[in-house]
């Protein structure tokens, strides 16, 4: 792999495009050509990008461009990063342009390019097919999480055509130079982080419907509150990233992923309805949640009530099991917190435990089919979602970092992991999925 001194970012006007450009310009110390449809958009991107890494100094290394200048940018760059809209037609047309440019270069120069797509779930193999060999062997997935400066996860995806030695050197560059938590994942729908994360979020969404008479959305978020190791509750997360994004990921999984949890990829009716009404979440002002500014300047937090199809004020649910867990966690008695969860037989505690175990089980299963080992599930959830890594639930949520190997057997007497079985036995209680 040739040293990366110049990078071209396509779709640099988007949030991911400009923030990833900032990662290349800062940690990567590279000159970055910001390519958008218009020069004006690229100029705006430059004015915003440096803020994401809190460093004015990188502005000097960013150059606004438009697609007319694509050939000269790509010719000068060692790495080309595509961050266009998550639409297969758009991405294909952009890669066709890049392919044309690279193919017109002398072979020696063409083969030195690293071509990356920042797609969060489309097939890298299909994109690679747009390129001719030997360029095709240098086309990979490089999936960052938002916001990339804070979320250090970067999923790297090789294809069947990928040159292994080249891939290893990009992996090294991503880890050592860009300081990312780089995880190799297979070319599979939604890759690993989003597959585990959004599967859990969708389960929470489905549970909100099932328990709509108990309160629904905010009730379920209370059941999976911060005491389960989530800085942000699952449905607050969905509201934050947008229901459209969530739906796109789920639809992709529904269509293309074939695993035992497939049924859980179907998004519930009420969420479909909110998407069709354009109520996508934070970005559109309302979604699962909504913040209303009262005349007196007071912010009122509202939640979508599934039963009545309208917004109501959020309720502060507290449950004896969660209160007890919170007080144990507060003083670092992590095992005691876990014991509460295992021994409390209230409806909410059972719901919480059952679904956390499903999360663990699904993560292990996905890590096996999409990743390469159990650590990859730890890494993606901790650094892509800021969620307690699944195996941590076994040790009792305490530490921010997981200790995968020590987990099993402490609280779970038996763990029948993937490959056919879908059953967990925890303290004599069997949970079937």
């Amino acid at each position: 792999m040739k040293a990366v001194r110049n990078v071209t970012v396509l779709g640099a006007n988007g949030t991911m495009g400009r923030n990833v450009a900032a990662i290349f310009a800062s940690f990567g110390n590279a000159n970055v050509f910001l390519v958008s449809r218009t020069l004006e958009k690229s100029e705006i991107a430059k004015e915003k990008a440096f803020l994401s890494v809190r460093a004015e100094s990188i502005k000097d290394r960013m150059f606004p461009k438009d697609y007319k200048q694509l050939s000269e940018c790509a010719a000068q760059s060692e790495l080309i990063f595509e961050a266009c809209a998550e639409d297969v037609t758009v991405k294909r047309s952009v890669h066709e342009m890049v392919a044309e440019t690279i193919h017109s270069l002398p072979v020696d120069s063409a083969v030195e390019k690293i071509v990356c797509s920042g797609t969060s779930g489309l097939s890298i193999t299909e994109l690679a097919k747009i390129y001719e060999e030997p360029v095709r062997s240098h086309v990979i997935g490089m999936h960052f999480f938002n916001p990339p400066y804070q979320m250090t996860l970067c999923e790297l995806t090789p294809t069947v055509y990928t040159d292994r030695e080249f891939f290893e050197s990009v992996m090294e560059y991503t880890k050592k130079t860009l300081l990312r938590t780089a995880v190799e994942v297979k070319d599979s729908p939604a890759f690993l982080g989003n597959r585990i994360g959004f599967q859990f979020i969708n389960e929470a969404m489905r549970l909100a419907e099932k328990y709509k008479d108990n309160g629904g959305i905010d009730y379920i978020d209370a059941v999976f509150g911060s005491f389960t190791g989530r800085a942000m509750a699952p449905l607050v997360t969905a509201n934050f990233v947008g229901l459209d994004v969530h739906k796109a990921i789920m639809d992709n999984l529904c269509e293309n992923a074939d695993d035992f949890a497939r049924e859980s990829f179907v998004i519930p009716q009420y969420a479909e309805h909110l998407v069709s009404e354009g109520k996508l979440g934070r970005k559109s002002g309302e979604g699962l949640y909504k913040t209303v500014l009262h005349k007196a300047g007071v912010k009122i937090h509202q939640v979508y009530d599934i039963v009545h199809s309208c917004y109501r004020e959020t309720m502060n649910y507290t449950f004896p099991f969660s209160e007890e867990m919170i007080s144990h966690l507060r003083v670092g008695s992590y095992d005691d917190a876990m014991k509460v969860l295992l021994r409390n037989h209230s409806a909410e505690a059972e719901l919480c435990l059952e679904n956390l175990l499903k999360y663990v089980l699904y993560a292990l299963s996905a890590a096996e089919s999409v990743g390469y080992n159990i650590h990859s599930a730890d890494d993606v959830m901790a650094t892509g979602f800021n969620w307690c890594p699944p195996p941590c639930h076994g040790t009792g949520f305490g530490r921010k970092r997981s200790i995968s190997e020590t987990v099993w057997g402490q609280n779970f007497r038996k763990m029948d992991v993937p490959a056919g079985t879908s059953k967990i036995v925890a303290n004599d209680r069997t949970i079937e999925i």
Partner: protein
Amino acid sequence: MGKVYVLGGAQTDFERNWTKEGKNVIALLKEVIHDALEDVEISYDDIKRLNRENRIACFVGNFIGEDYVNQGHLGALLTEVSSAFYGVPSARYEAACASGSAAIDAAITKIQAGEYDLALVAGWELMKTVDSRTCGNILGKASYYEKEAYGIDFPFPKLFGKLAEETVKKYELDEKRYLSALAKISVINYSNAKRNPLAQTRKWFMDYEQACHRGTETNSQIGGLLAISDCSQVTDGAAVVILASEKMTKELGKQNTPLVKGYGHRNAPMLFEKKIDEDNDSAYILPWTRQAVADAYRRSHLTVDDIHVFETHDCFTSSEYAAISAFGITEPGREYEAVENGKIAFGGEKPVNPSGGLIGCGHPVGASGCRMFLDLYKQVSGKAGDYQVIKNGKYPENAVMLNIGGTATTNYVFVVGK
């Protein structure tokens, strides 16, 4: 006097925000003490056994838990961490940002005197419990509050900004060259932190251009000549070191254990202005800081030539700058040379702050003395991992640290070696 050995210890991940995690000081102490005991292979049962013979004591370093977490009586608080501490002598030591060192000093003295055989020293501070302005005000209490901090936003950056100005004045330095050296100090600390898996800023970006872009939106000026890139940041964290007598070390079957070779402890005038008035007679800008270093070298029968790695108190780049000559790495007034020629860089002849220091690794004020001391232990015993300093294929034989409280009012220096 008996020898004092350093068995090991632990520090927390300085990136963590314990308040956001919903955890209090007990959780912090439980984790760090658990890790430290594991590191030295001592159990809570061993503590109970040693305590029956009154052979163990605890020493807690903390600056101002009363303001940050509404908690005093911090020596006794360890009994909430484990019942193994019931009956164990324990008290809190305070000397502002040098509180950790004050606790280590007390522990060393008790072991040297033969009073105890094992000492657990825990330094900690949880600072992210308050907003940054309130935090700055609380830290102001390390100065003469009434005269130097009352009614002033962020008094400490301003006081260390004055140190920067006085340094330029005293040595008639080219201000641009001096500020460039400070920017390089910041960058060295940030880049060293990238190798330290427990450093607060290990994922943060900083480069020389950014550190020089003072007075911009992402690097605002905060105290005179100093900008954000010149400052250590608000940090939550704890560090524990475990010290032992020769007898205890033998009992535990520990071999080739590093030991405390010497120390220095000097206090300068409380008011910054008086410090500056006084230094007119000295070649050093902080003469009592220099004196504390000289005392430590004298007690350990070593000179700067024998020291292979340094950890200093870079609460601000201007304080690390002054420490360079205080350590004897350069003549006073020529500190910029060691910055410019790479002498203090990670791979340099006299590496300063391979851990990332306060700017890179973080500065939970009451913990910093213990964290530095632990890093000396790690360096001389070859346990510093990716930030291990290696000279001619060997681990450093001797390491020195400088931990200051206030505006270099309290000055503590320790030498740890083999």
